[in-house]
């Protein structure tokens, strides 16, 4: 097992380098560069000034020089400076990553806690009114646009009822400390976390339902029942564990989104996360930040897949990596 892990981690290194090469190339091919983003579209800007900016950002070097210098610096742990703000990339990312992890992690947790029971109930009560109701709700959850749900929730819970904050991560009027600060952040997180988990919850509950249904039709379930096992035990010991395998894959695949953030939700709720950072960076052709964000998400995707593989071993003893 440990052998396997080391092997997989080593494999990740050339993969990450290849990804960095591709992303760097794509940013290079995309029209426009960071210096042009200093142009004020309201007025236009002195071309000489743009040339100065270009020089000061080191954009005049050939692309391979810039790539190699980026690569060597990255191996030394130096991600460079943001072109937009001229602050260290590590600073920009570290300011936002915890916020995104918090929101993304919470919404993932909400999805798991709600989706799995719903899926199980739907499968057990197949074709019942409850099943139809939950299926319809899931369909709605998958179909409605995120921004529309977000605005609806803000209108209802922030503006009409005044129960929950509509924007930001912390109150700016009061400066809370200790538990009050935790409670403050939690209150700010409720609406965006619900919005973010909605579609995920809906689709995972469908997967859980069909996975469980498939397992329930297997021979070993019939055997278990034939042995005279109590239905509850059949379900918990034999069916659920097997039905978890596809869900674990799904969860593993969605782990990266906890890190990369969600642009639309973050914008509507003014959440200071990675999604807004990433989109701002792409619009500004801010390649040190683009590179850091994409490399980080690539790394998390690799780790997420690895975690899913490890989880398989736990849910399904037939799987071994020797």
């Amino acid at each position, binding site marked *: 097992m440990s052998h396997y892990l080391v092997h997989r981690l080593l494999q990740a290194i050339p993969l990450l380098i290849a990804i960095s090469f591709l992303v760097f190339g794509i940013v290079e091919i*995309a*029209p*426009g560069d960071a210096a*042009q*983003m*200093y*142009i*004020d*579209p*309201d*007025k*236009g*800007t*002195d*071309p*000489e*000034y*743009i040339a*100065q*900016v270009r*020089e*000061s950002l080191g954009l005049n070097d050939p692309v391979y020089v810039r790539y190699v210098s980026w690569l060597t610096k990255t191996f030394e742990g130096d991600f460079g*400076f943001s072109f*937009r*703000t*001229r*602050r260290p990339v590590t*600073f*920009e990312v570290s*300011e*936002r990553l915890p*916020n995104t992890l918090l929101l993304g992690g919470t919404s993932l947790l909400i999805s798991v806690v709600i989706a799995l029971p719903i899926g199980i109930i739907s499968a057990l009560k197949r074709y019942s009114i409850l099943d139809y109701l939950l299926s319809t709700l899931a369909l709605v959850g998958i179909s409605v646009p995120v921004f529309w749900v977000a*605005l609806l929730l*803000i*209108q209802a819970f*922030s*503006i009409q009822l*005044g129960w929950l*904050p*509509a*924007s*930001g*991560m*912390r109150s*700016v*009027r009061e400066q809370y400390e200790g538990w009050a600060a935790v409670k403050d952040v939690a209150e700010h997180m409720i609406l965006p976390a619900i919005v973010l988990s909605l579609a995920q919850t809906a689709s995972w509950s469908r997967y859980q339902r069909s996975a469980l249904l498939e397992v329930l039709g297997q021979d070993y379930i019939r055997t278990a029942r034939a042995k005279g096992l109590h239905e509850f035990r059949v379900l918990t010991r034999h069916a659920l564990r097997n039905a978890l395998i596809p869900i674990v894959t799904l969860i593993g695949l969605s782990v990266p989104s906890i890190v990369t953030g969600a642009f639309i939700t973050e*914008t*509507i709720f*003014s*959440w*200071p*996360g990675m999604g*807004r*950072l990433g989109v*701002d960076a792409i*619009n500004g*052709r801010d390649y040190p930040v683009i590179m850091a964000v994409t490399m980080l998400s690539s790394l998390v995707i690799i780790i997420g897949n690895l975690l899913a593989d490890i989880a398989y071993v736990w849910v399904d003893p037939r799987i071994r990596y020797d």
Partner: protein
Amino acid sequence: MKRTLIAVLLIVLLSLPLTSALAQDGGDDDFACPNTGGTLVVAYGTDPRSLSGLYGNDGNSLFIITFMAEPLLLGGENWGDQIEPALAESWDISEDGLEYTFHLRQGVKWHDGEPFTAEDVLFTYEAVLLEENAIDWRPNLMQGDQPMQFEVVDDHTFKVRLNEPDATVLTALAIPIVPKHAFTSLEMLDAPYNTSPIATGPYKFVEWNTGENVVLEANQDYWRGAPCIDRLVVRFIEGAANQANALLAGELDYARVDGADLTPFENNPDFVLATAPRDLMRYVGFNVRSPKVSDPAVRRALAVALDRQAIIDAAAGGYGTLADSVFTSAAFMYEPGRNAQYPYDPALAQQMLADAGWTDTDGDGIVDKDGEKMSLRVVYLGTWSLMQAIAPLVYDNWRSIGVDVVLDPLDEAKSYEEIYDNVSEEKPYDVMLGGWGLFGPEPDHYRNYLVSPTGFFAYDNEEVQAMFEEGRRISDPDARYELYAEVDRLLWEDLPMIPLYQAVGAWVYRSDLNIDAAELNGTFLTGLKYPGRAYFEG
């Protein structure tokens, strides 16, 4: 309002050749806060690029900087619509117009308690001139290839020497001043100052929470008097609709929300909805080198074909004033009604086109002349929702008089390449849609954009260029007023661009927030001329 503005300018300009101290004290010192304390929460788009007044030239940065920093005088680009003293109490101009002596305000302190002196002014201007710093104010301090000369006479007297007389120098010098003692050298591209500024304005920097907000607090030593409100938070909330929601949810006290649905604020006792003209013009610009629109008569016909009021109502939600000049009302010589309005009249437009030789000879519904069809490529920044809204209206209006229109929304990078780079005289479009502004009272600031051969309109009109040249040389205020009034008339006649409307801002704020003395003024990005005088009613 307009009259006072002109009067102030006349006073300023009349004294130009007289070598007299002309400007009095900046503010009315008799203001006292009726109530103090509280936190004012305002909002703007996203994280600033820089908090240094020398680098923060994007809206996000400027919005915060105007609460903190100050130039020698107001009235420069981004600094309102009137020339009036700020850090300089008054100034004299030598008889030959080559030497400007600024008398700096005494007793002004930086936010860290150090005294403000002429050395800071010199340091600021030298830093701007240093090429490696890549500061975009640099052209302001250059006359052709020669920089202006600066001299510290004593702690509170500062001299600027010009190589040739330039009547626009006052507004050119309106650059936020930075403290010399906060820097280790003139090179400031990566100075710590850019993220933790020290200035002289009403509010001082406390902290910048990335992605969330910038917190400022009252500068108790402010020379206009300590601000009434203790704490000011600029939150980063993108989009007028999201800001409007935050206002309704009680999470914001003051924001400019034109562009959002404003009905919840109308007749709402909890909020005040106030409007003010902004120093921003939206326009349809011509590439006057394109043979199809090189004839001014054609351009006038296309103007008459546009239902500009409908564009204001549909695209800007009614928040605009029908333009009757290529200059905004902030320009000192602007006079409403000077130019005859181009009325919306499609039949007349068609007649005007026909008079200019453009008729539909082959019956395909598109006018043509000498075998060439009138087909116009209209480009604009496609990610700008306002332009998205304006473009189809222009299309409809022009199509209805037999002008073929090809709308070409460009992504950001492409539009920088095609429209905004300003380096080529060859423009790949016939028409562009855009907006510009924050030029302040000095019409000379329009020059590069309006009459430069490489500008958006490739407009190479020697007569107008010569008039702008003369505008810099002459200092007599009446003559200057007359000269620019003539430029105004001429450009309205020749129409290198069709000004659509001057933007009107809609500010919404809590009804217990009093901004009467703070003066709502749309020509400042913040909307407030004296932010320190806003207060919460008890």
